[in-house]
């Protein structure tokens, strides 16, 4: 089948996956439209006092540009605080601390990013966000189905197994949680360090088979 030359979608038609318990919504743009040359997503804060960009530093080297499409937000950029009404661009080089909190209802920020000097690779975290978005919306079956398919396609990567272990722990499936966590640690020992601090596993830490 020939790929269509173009795709169209309105911001209102994009999925709204909860990213945290406070109300930050991830609106996948790249994934919806099939973009491959750069990353692009929208984030919406509906109430107007919640986080709209998670505070982070992009340690994987992505150059990121944020655009406030609607509403208003206060960004942290390095040591500075930036008032950002609709129409504001905020550029953060890799390693610069950045984050934003909405100051008006229905604030939407579009985030664009890619790694300088390298062909763009689609971030694996997108599919993990989708799965946990389903979970936060109360759709456990769809979350498990999505993560299981992701793990089947990426069996040699620890992140899929680790996140499936988290989901199984959150839904009290002891055996499956332990099996996937063991596999994640086998693939990369740093999974053990993450699991030691991850509250998703708190209820099973005393289990003699718990591997972290």
């Amino acid at each position: 089948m020939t790929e269509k030359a173009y795709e169209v979608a309105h911001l209102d038609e994009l999925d709204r996956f909860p990213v945290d318990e406070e109300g930050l919504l991830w609106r996948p743009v790249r994934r919806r439209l099939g973009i491959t040359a750069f990353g692009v997503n929208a984030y919406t804060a509906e109430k107007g006092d919640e986080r709209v960009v998670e505070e982070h530093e992009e340690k994987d080297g992505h150059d990121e540009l944020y655009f406030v499409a609607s509403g208003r937000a206060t960004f942290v950029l390095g040591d500075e605080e930036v008032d950002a009404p609709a129409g504001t661009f905020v550029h953060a080089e890799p390693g610069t601390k950045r984050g934003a909190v909405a100051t008006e209802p229905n604030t939407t920020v579009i985030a664009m990013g890619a790694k300088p000097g390298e062909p763009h690779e689609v971030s694996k975290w997108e599919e993990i966000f989708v799965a946990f978005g389903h979970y936060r919306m109360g759709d456990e079956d769809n979350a498990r189905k999505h993560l299981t398919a992701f793990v089947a396609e990426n069996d040699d990567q620890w992140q899929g197994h680790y996140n499936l272990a988290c989901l199984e722990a959150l839904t009290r499936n002891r055996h499956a949680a332990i099996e996937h966590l063991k596999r994640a640690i086998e693939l990369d020992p740093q999974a053990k360090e993450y699991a030691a601090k991850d509250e998703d596993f708190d209820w099973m830490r005393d289990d003699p088979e718990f591997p972290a």
Partner: protein
Amino acid sequence: MSGSAHISDLTFTFPNAQSWAMVRTHFGVSSFGVNAYIAEEKGVEVIGEHDELGERSGHHEELYFVVSGHATFTVNGDEIDAPTGTFVFVRDPAAQRRAVAEEAGTTVLIVGGKPGEAFEPSPWERTTRGLVHFANEDYDSAAEAYEQLLDETPGDPGFLYNLACAESRLGRTESALRHLRQAAEADANYAKNAIGDPDLDAIRDEPEFSAITGQAGAAGSGS
């Protein structure tokens, strides 16, 4: 550099009621292309008709986002109604695309990159170093910018053409005609462009102009 700016602080406006915001160069974004275009009047092209295959194009897949206002996109002949909040993603570099503003102040953000390759800025982008001076009607600075660009890329037909336009505005008839001829010889499309370009009105009645464009006495009429 890390930093912030409002889109209204980045724009410069041309006499044809188009404004550009050169976002990528302002911030030094090096991993994808990003700019914004504003049509100050209804009916004005906010995205000029183009594909991404030409020598001066980046062969990019392009994402357009209607930031404000309302536009009608045309992609490969298909009309797309695009109110504020619409994304139009053109993955095929060969697709012809353009957009016309249905409201004054319609603003479109464009993000682009070439799949499977590290980002390289589109060659056309460098021309804005001179175009910004056209927007300010500072033709001395425009001519100087294009002379510098030609030192960097000798014989580039786009830079030669824009230098000819600046020189025409400055009354430097002889050098304007010389550079226009060089541009047209390198790329015949510039001879066609010259026919309706008001920047060249001052040299339009010269016999050499007619010889270059192949149209004796052609009147200026375009944008």
